[in-house]
């Protein structure tokens, strides 16, 4: 690289012609520091630091909103539905960071003026514009994060299941004791009312059962029921569901090879959304995604049909 030597010589001259760091640069730095301190105090005084309710791992209604400078990343997640989420979540930021690390070895010419490095200037401006646009989109649309949507009640129920040592007698996914029934095969098909009664007083619904009465709190029963119901065994849809889909949804949505491509392809929707989310979305899409042009089906379809459809869709996992 011929220009390296020239640059060092030219820089030496520029440095000699320049001013002493103290006091000239230090003065500017100090003024800047005071300006920032003043601005920071103003923000701290006017906005303070919020403190919300204590963390509640069982609160399924809480919709997390990230710090504003991460908003663009969350908004980007929405552009990559289903299995492609990892593209937005990991691959793009990973590529960005790799690019930053490699930058000095990609742009190696002597030119420093941004007008004379049009490629890198455009790349920078384009990235900034993209981040700006996504951030704006993120602030105007309420956040429903695709990854988080697994029900927190289920998490809490799972934790309780572990801490109560239920697996001493029960199997889930083939793991656990064999005194009681295999929960993912049997219990998840029961109704919520049945499960609730069962947790309160096992013998009242299963005469002769050796399951002990656990004296659980109402909240604990709620999360356990949610957990058991989430295991999926009895969560089947009826054979009506594909027909309902064909009649009402297929003009816009695709599953496998059937259907149109006006709206998103739903072949893998079950990997990203659970049944409850699908039900809410079918009932009224605008609540979860204001920019959606899909109509709401509450009233168009019966609640039973919507539930059935939601189960059908949440079972679409591409296998």
């Amino acid at each position, binding site marked *: 690289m011929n220009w390296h030597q020239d640059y060092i010589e030219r820089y030496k001259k520029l440095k000699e012609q320049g001013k002493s760091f103290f006091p000239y640069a230090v003065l*500017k730095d100090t003024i*800047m520091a005071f300006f920032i301190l003043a601005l920071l105090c103003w923000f*701290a005084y006017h906005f303070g630091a919020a403190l919300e309710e204590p963390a509640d791992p069982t609160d399924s209604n809480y919709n997390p909103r990230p710090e504003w400078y991460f908003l663009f990343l969350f908004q980007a997640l929405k552009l990559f539905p289903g299995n492609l989420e990892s593209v937005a979540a990991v691959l793009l930021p990973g590529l960005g960071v790799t690019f930053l690390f490699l930058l000095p070895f990609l742009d190696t*010419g002597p030119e420093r*003026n941004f007008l004379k490095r049009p490629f890198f200037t455009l790349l920078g401006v384009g990235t900034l514009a993209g981040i700006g646009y996504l951030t704006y989109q993120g602030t105007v649309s309420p956040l429903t994060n695709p990854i*988080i949507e697994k029900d927190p009640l289920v998490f809490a129920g799972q934790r309780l299941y572990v801490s109560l040592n239920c697996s001493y007698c029960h199997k889930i996914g083939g793991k656990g004791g064999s005194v009681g029934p295999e929960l993912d095969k049997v219990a998840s098909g029961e109704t919520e009312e049945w499960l609730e009664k069962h947790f309160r007083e096992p013998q009242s619904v299963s005469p002769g059962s050796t399951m002990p009465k656990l004296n659980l709190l109402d909240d604990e029963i709620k999360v356990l029921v949610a957990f058991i119901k989430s295991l999926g065994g009895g969560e089947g849809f009826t054979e009506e569901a594909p027909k309902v889909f064909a009649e009402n949804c297929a003009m816009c949505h695709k599953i496998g090879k059937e259907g149109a491509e006006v709206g998103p392809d739903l072949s893998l929707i079950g990997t990203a959304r659970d049944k409850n989310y699908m039900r809410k979305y079918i009932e009224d899409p605008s609540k979860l995604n204001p920019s959606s042009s899909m109509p709401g089906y509450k009233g168009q379809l019966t609640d039973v049909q919507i539930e059935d459809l939601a189960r059908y869709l949440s079972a679409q996992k591409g296998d």
Partner: protein
Amino acid sequence: MKLLWEWMKSRLALAEIWNALFSRHVPEAEGLVGWLYTLGSASLFVFFIQVITGSLLAMNYVPSPDHAYDSIRFINEQVIFGKWIRALHHWGATFMVVVVSLHMLRVYFMGSYKYPREATWIVGVILFLLVMGFSFTGYLLPWDQKSYWATMVGANIASQTPAIGSYIAKILKGGDEMGAVTLTRFYAIHTLVLPGLILVAILIHLFLVVWHGISEPPQKNKGSDKKAGA
């Protein structure tokens, strides 16, 4: 008194340090461009604010799920200036991200990462990632709804990494579930691991800035003249 000063000057090489750091000449940068050159030192300044306010907060904070939230309320309501210090630390974090990003953009668009300052840039990128690490780990500490669920999302995003995702999430959370271990882990990372790393990175970054000299503002003509001559 004078004797003490002379002793310190000779034993601590104060004059030499002063010459190397403060009497060094820097290329002229005038007008608005000159002010863009203050963003680096501004980042350092905000870092100091974070160190001071963070240390004060750590004195009253308890990193356990049972007490974290209450200790924040204690800081807000009982500690003298506690509310203020927390607000400063909270907004300081935002300022840090903004100032560091602006600094990075200045360097990017002025092409200051070019020879001979490639290493300075790379250490700068590491510093940027460390700042993001501070932001992510600090967010959980108040243990309120927002911090809990936002961190849950963050951990879930990390778990999306192909092949090793679930391990990363497990290491972050300290297990399958988010709980007491996650909180102490984030606290240790936020107050011990990252400060150690960032101090080393800052020192290297500053040393390189002084060693290579601060880059001169790009000139419209000189660059191409040089190219013709090269």
